[in-house]
């Protein structure tokens, strides 16, 4: 397997704050790699260094075979970036934004127009093509952002939290687009805070915490160490809790919140079976909720401490 991106010993500090503390990554060409981590873990900084926006303090980063420090122009020619920090031109229309990208990629007028029209169609923006971006919804803007990245036909695409703040439908659309790109042989480097997103899309995941890679592997390898989903039953009184615990067996009891946690995959069949086992005791249940492992669980399982708090994120935003 050839590598699209190799990172060795990457370090970066902003002032006295260490953001990246020696990270190593390897991304195979034509695969999807996900950098998973909470706010403030250093995900965006990593992408900014790989996309030539920020210089590293130490270590080596090679993208598409070129060193980002020594030959940034060659790296830029191979990549596309869509993310939190990149943006669209709000004062232009969607179509004008795409034509601007076509001009900057030195496409001929006719080719640029064809490319723009094709992308507007593909990203479901044809109806809004002549409207200024200020009138777009968050999902439309994100789609336009990615469409602009695709004008130059990049072989490596960086997506920095591409679905943060999107509604579920837009999120699904974005996922499908990413899968289509990979099917065309594009390498995707994706950062996300959501375990299910990395799980759904990535061939390999690296877990970033406080500027260090704390775990790496395929989604299956990582999930092996994580507690499974469970169903949570909440009761109004201790009597119900006692009865249900006897009926189920093997459930984990929380005395203070009057809840029982029952290991389960959380699917409808499993929940129905669980309620059947409760029988009449089910009437004593106030609330049934299904809990699937999220980033917090992964962090707790793999690092033994909860994910970094929002305070760190604010620290980074202040810089």
């Amino acid at each position: 397997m050839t590598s699209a991106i190799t990172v060795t010993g990457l370090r970066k500090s902003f002032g006295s704050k260490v953001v990246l503390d020696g990270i190593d990554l390897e991304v195979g060409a034509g695969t999807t790699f996900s950098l998973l981590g909470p706010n403030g873990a250093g995900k965006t900084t990593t992408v900014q260094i790989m996309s030539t926006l920020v210089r590293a303090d130490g270590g080596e980063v090679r993208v598409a075979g070129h060193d980002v420090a020594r030959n940034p122009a060659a790296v830029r020619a191979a990549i596309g970036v869509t993310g939190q920090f990149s943006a669209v031109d709000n004062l232009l229309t969607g179509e004008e934004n795409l034509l601007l990208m076509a001009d900057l990629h030195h496409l001929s007028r006719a080719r640029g127009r064809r490319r723009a029209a094709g992308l507007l169609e593909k990203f479901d923006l044809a109806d809004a093509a002549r409207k200024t971006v200020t009138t777009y919804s968050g999902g439309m803007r994100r789609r336009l952002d990615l469409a602009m990245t695709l004008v130059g036909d990049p072989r490596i695409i960086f997506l920095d939290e591409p679905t943060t703040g999107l509604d579920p439908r837009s999120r699904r659309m974005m996922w499908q687009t990413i899968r289509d790109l990979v099917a065309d042989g594009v390498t995707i480097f994706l950062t996300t805070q959501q375990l299910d997103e990395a799980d759904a899309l990535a061939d390999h995941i690296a877990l970033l915490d406080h500027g260090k890679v704390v775990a790496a592997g395929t989604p299956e390898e990582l999930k092996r160490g994580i507690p499974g989903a469970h169903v949570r039953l909440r009761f109004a009184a201790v009597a119900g809790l006692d009865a249900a615990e006897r009926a189920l067996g093997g459930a984990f009891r929380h005395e203070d919140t009057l809840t029982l946690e029952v290991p389960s995959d959380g699917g409808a069949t499993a929940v129905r079976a669980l309620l059947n086992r409760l029988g009449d005791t089910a009437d004593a249940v106030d609330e049934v909720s299904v809990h699937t492992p999220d980033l917090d669980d992964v962090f707790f399982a793999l690092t033994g401490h909860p994910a970094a708090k929002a305070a760190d994120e604010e620290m980074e935003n202040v810089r």
Partner: protein
Amino acid sequence: MTTLTLAARDSATMTRRSLRHVMRYPVTLVVSVVVPVMLLLLFTGVFGSLRSSLGAVSHSAYLAYVVPGIIVMTAAYGSSVTAQSINRDSTEGIIARFRTMAISPASVLNGHVISALARTLLSVALVIGVSIGLGFRPTADAGRWLAVAGVTALLVLALTWLAVPFGLAAKTAEGLSGFVLIVQLLPFISSAFVPPDQMSGSVRWFAAHQPFTPVIDTLRGLLTGTADGGTALVAVAWCIGIALAGYLWARVLFRRDLSR
């Protein structure tokens, strides 16, 4: 494609983009003409009437005196619009996108500067047109008009290159208020409305030595026939110096890491 043709092509694309912004929101252009014209009316109507009532100067003579200052204020107003538009690009992140693309890096700022030059010179031309409508009678011949255009373009270039680093450096639009205040207020303490030798003490010294005064004096000389070669040289030197300083500072800011 050579580096130079690449730079020219990308700069042209970026200039088209900026000009499209101007045409999409023509109100910016209208305001950049209306504000100086309001000032012109204010000064000739209020201040000029006061001076003519004191017998110091006739109304039409004062109008002729004030117009060069108004031209400079139009250029100053234009530069604050430029700073805002660069700041918007910088804070909204489109400059970050441009910097990850295989384009001529210089084109990003060049596009802004070239379109700012075109936009501001158009505003100045409109302001001069309105002044003539109000009774301003310049005595310049074609050669002097050309010199007026040259000096004005140089001034706009200087103020624009000064606006660029301020636009890049400010983290929010509010952070620009210092720059806007300085470029818009400085002309008031110059030879724009009153000859500095009629001012008192340190204000007089400041007004006589600040960069806007030689530019205004040069324009006044060219437009109404009292050209002073020495002043013109000082004006050109100031403009080139300011443009160069702004350009170098902008280059440093543009290349620095994006740490926000």
